[in-house]
C-alpha cells in the first residue's frame, strides 16, 4: 500500500508538486503518464526519499515519510522495501553485473555471498542475462544495462518497484527487450502465488503504460488530474 497525502514540493520557489493525493493498493501497477516537466519523476523520487518534500506525507512499505530531511534509519528501512530503476541505469561501473546485483543484499542485508549470488543468478536469468553475469557494465548494451538495473532493484526482495522512465534513454530497437522484462515482472506482480509487488511506472510511452498498468494517472501542473483504467488491447 502506498498512500500519498497532500504532497507539496517546490524547487527554489517554483512549485512542482502542488498537493498530490493518491494511493496504490498492494500488487497493483500504476503508470504515471504525462509530458516531461509535469512533476512525475519528482513524485517518484519523493516516495523513496531521494527528494525531500515540503508538506504532506507518504506512507510506503509500512513506513511513513514526513516533510523535511528524513531520518537515515527510516530512509534505509524504506529503501529496503522499495526498489528503484533509473532512466540512465546507473550501474556501478567498477563492479561486474553479478556484483552490481549482489552488492545491496550482501552489505545491507548481510546475506552470505553464495546465497546472494544464487539469487542474483536467478534474477539475471529472469531478465535474460544469465550468460553475462561476469561482464562489466561497459561491455553491455543500453538495454542489457537496464535489465541488470531491474534485477538489481529486485534483488533485496522489495515490495515496491519504482520505475523512472525505464525505456526513455534507449534506442528504439533496444526498448522491446526491456519492455519484455517489464511484462515478465508485471506478470510476477499479478501472480497470486507470489509475494505482492506494487509497481509505479513513470513513462511517456502510452502503449507500454496501457499494456502493463492497472490504473493510469495523468499528472499536470503538480496535481494528478485524472486516474483512469487502461485501454487494454
Amino acid at each position, binding site marked *: 500500500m502506498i498512500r500519498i497525502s497532500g504532497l507539496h514540493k517546490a524547487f527554489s520557489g517554483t512549485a512542482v508538486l502542488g498537493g498530490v493525493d493518491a494511493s496504490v493498493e498492494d500488487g497493483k501497477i500504476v503508470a504515471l503518464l504525462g509530458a516531461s516537466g509535469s512533476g512525475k519523476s519528482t513524485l517518484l523520487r519523493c516516495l523513496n526519499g531521494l527528494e525531500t518534500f515540503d508538506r504532506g506525507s507518504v506512507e510506503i512499505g509500512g513506513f511513513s515519510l514526513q516533510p523535511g530531511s528524513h531520518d537515515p534509519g527510516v530512509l534505509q528501512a524504506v*529503501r529496503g522495501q522499495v526498489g528503484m530503476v533509473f532512466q540512465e541505469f546507473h550501474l556501478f561501473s567498477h563492479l561486474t553485473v553479478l556484483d552490481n546485483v549482489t552488492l545491496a543484499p550482501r*552489505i*545491507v542485508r548481510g546475506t552470505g555471498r553464495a546465497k546472494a549470488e544464487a539469487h542474483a543468478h536467478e534474477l539475471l536469468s529472469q531478465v535474460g542475462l544469465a550468460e553475462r553475469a561476469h561482464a562489466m557494465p561497459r561491455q553491455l548494451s543500453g538495454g542489457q544495462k537496464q535489465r541488470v538495473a531491474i534485477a538489481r532493484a529486485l534483488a533485496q526482495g522489495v515490495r515496491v518497484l519504482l520505475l523512472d522512465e525505464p525505456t526513455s534513454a534507449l534506442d528504439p530497437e533496444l526498448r522491446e527487450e526491456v519492455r519484455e522484462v517489464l511484462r515478465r515482472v508485471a506478470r510476477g506482480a499479478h501472480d497470486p502465488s507470489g509475494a505482492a509487488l506494487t509497481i509505479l511506472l513513470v513513462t511517456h510511452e502510452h502503449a507500454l503504460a496501457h499494456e502493463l498498468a492497472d490504473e493510469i494517472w495523468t499528472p499536470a501542473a503538480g496535481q494528478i488530474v485524472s486516474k483512469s483504467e487502461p485501454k487494454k488491447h
Partner: protein
Amino acid sequence: MTQASAANAANTDGATEPNFVARTGARLAWYAALRVRAWTLSRLARLARLARLARLVVVAIVLLVPRAAHADWAEVRAHGELGWGGDLQGGEPYVYESPTQPGVLVGFEVDIAQALARELGVRAKFHQNDWSNLIPSLERGDFDVILNGLEDTPARRSRLRLSRPYFVYGETLAVRPGSALRALADLGGHRIGTLNQTVAQELLSAHHAEVVLYEGQQEPYLDLAHGRIEGVLLDHVIAARYGCPLPELRCLSKDLARGTYVVAIRPTEAELATRVDAALSHLIQSGELRAILEHWKLWDSRQDELSARDTVATAAAQAASVASASSGVAAPAAGIAKRALSGAQLALFFQGALLTIFISVCAFGLALPLGIALAVVRSHAGPVARFFATAYVEVFRGTPVLLQLYVLYYGLSSVVRLGPIVAAVLGLGLNYAAYEAEVHRGALNALPRGQAEAAGSLGLSRVQVLWHVLLPQSVRIALPALTNDFVALLKDSSLVSVITVVELTKRMTIVAVEARDWVVPGLLCASLYFAMSFPLSRLSLWLERRYQST
C-alpha cells in the same frame, strides 16, 4: 635551486669552456628533473606541455647566449670591481645581513673584502652563492674570488690558486656533558655532525666517524642538544657562536686540529692571485687585518701564525695523512685530474636511490589515505570538519615543503624529536596529502550523481555508499594523476637533504665535489631518477587508457 642553476646556465660560454658540452649535459639532467605537479586531471596535459616548453627555452638560452669572458685582473681593474663569492647563510660573523639595517652586509669577511679591494684599487662586490657550490661557481666565472671561510686543503690547492691565509681556525668539538669523546681518535663509529665540504668532514671520514652533514651552522648544534647526534666538529668561530653558548652543550677547549681560511682564485689568473697575496701581506704587516679581527673579537693566539704563513699546520694535511695511512678509506679529494667514480661511490649512489625510493613510497603511503580522507571530509562532512580539512589543504599547499620540513625537524624538535627519515616521510607525506586531497576531491566530484543516488536507493548508508561505490570509482579516475604525483614526490624527496638525509641528489652533489666532476655523477643521478620515474609514467599512461575507455 633550479632557478639559480638556470641563471648560471645562461652564463655558460661554449667558446671558453672546453667541457661545455659535458656540462650542458649535466645541466640538462637538472632540467629533466623539473618537477611537474598537477592537482587536477585537466591541468595535467597543460602542465606537461609547459614543462616541455620551459625545458626547450632553457636549452635555447644555454646554447645561444654567450657569457662575458672570464674576468682576469685587467677586467677587474677595468670594471673597478672585485666580485667575491660567499654565502649569507654562513651567518655571523663571516658575512651576514645587518640585523639593524636590513639589506646591508656586515661581517669580518666584508671588512676584509673591502680592505682587499681597496688595496687593489677597486670596489668589492658581494655575490651570494650556496656555500657547498662556491668552487664550481668560481670556476664558472660567476665572481672573481671566494672569500668565505674557505679552508686551505691540498685538494683545493691542486684545483685553484689559494692566497696566503687571512685567518687561523681550530677544529672545535662540541659534545653533551658527560660525553667521553675527547680527540679525533675517539670519534670512530660515532654520529658526528659537521658542514658539507668542510675539512672537518674530511677529518671525520678519515677517522671513521659516522658523518652527518648539515647545510646551516645552527642545525648541527640543535641536533646535538636534542640528542640526534653525539658531537659536532666545526671551526672554533662557528662553535663559539652557535654551539658553545647552548647550555646543553660543552665545547672542548683544545683544538682537535688547526687550519686556515684563504682566498680562492681561478688557476688561470696568476696576476690576480699575486696581487691578492701582496694585498693580504700588506694588510697583515700594516696591522689592519688584526684591527679587523679584533673589531670582530676574533683575534686570538692562533692568529700569531698568520704572519708566518709557511709554519701554519693545516688540519687538512693532517686529514690527508691519516686517510692515506688507513687503507680502504677514500682519501680526501687530491690530485689534479678528475677521478673516476669508485665502486664504493657507486654503491653509495644505489644506496641513495634506495633511500629515495623508501622515503617516497612511505611518504606516498601516508599522503594517499590522508588525502582521500581529507577529500571525503571536504565533499561529504559537516561544515566544521569541512572547514578544518580545507584549512589543512590550503596551509600545506600554500607554504613551501622545504619550510614544512624545517619546522617539523628543527622547529618542533623541543616538542617531538623526530629522526631525520621519520621527519622526511612525515613532512613529504603531510605536504603531498594536501595535493592528493585535491586530486581525490576532483575525482569524487567527477562521478555522476546517479551513482550515489542508485547506491542510496538500494539502502546503502552514506559510509557504505562512499566505501563500496564512490571511492572505488574515484580512485580509478584519480590513478593517472596519482602516478604523476608520485613521480613528482620522487623528485621532491631530494629536498629532505636539508634535514641531513643523504638521498640520491645529495649523494650526487657530495660525489661530484669529491670527484671534481658534475657530468658523470649528474648523469648517473639523472638516469637513476629516470629509471625510477619512467616506468611510473608508462603505468600512468596505461591506466589512463584503460580507464578512459570505460
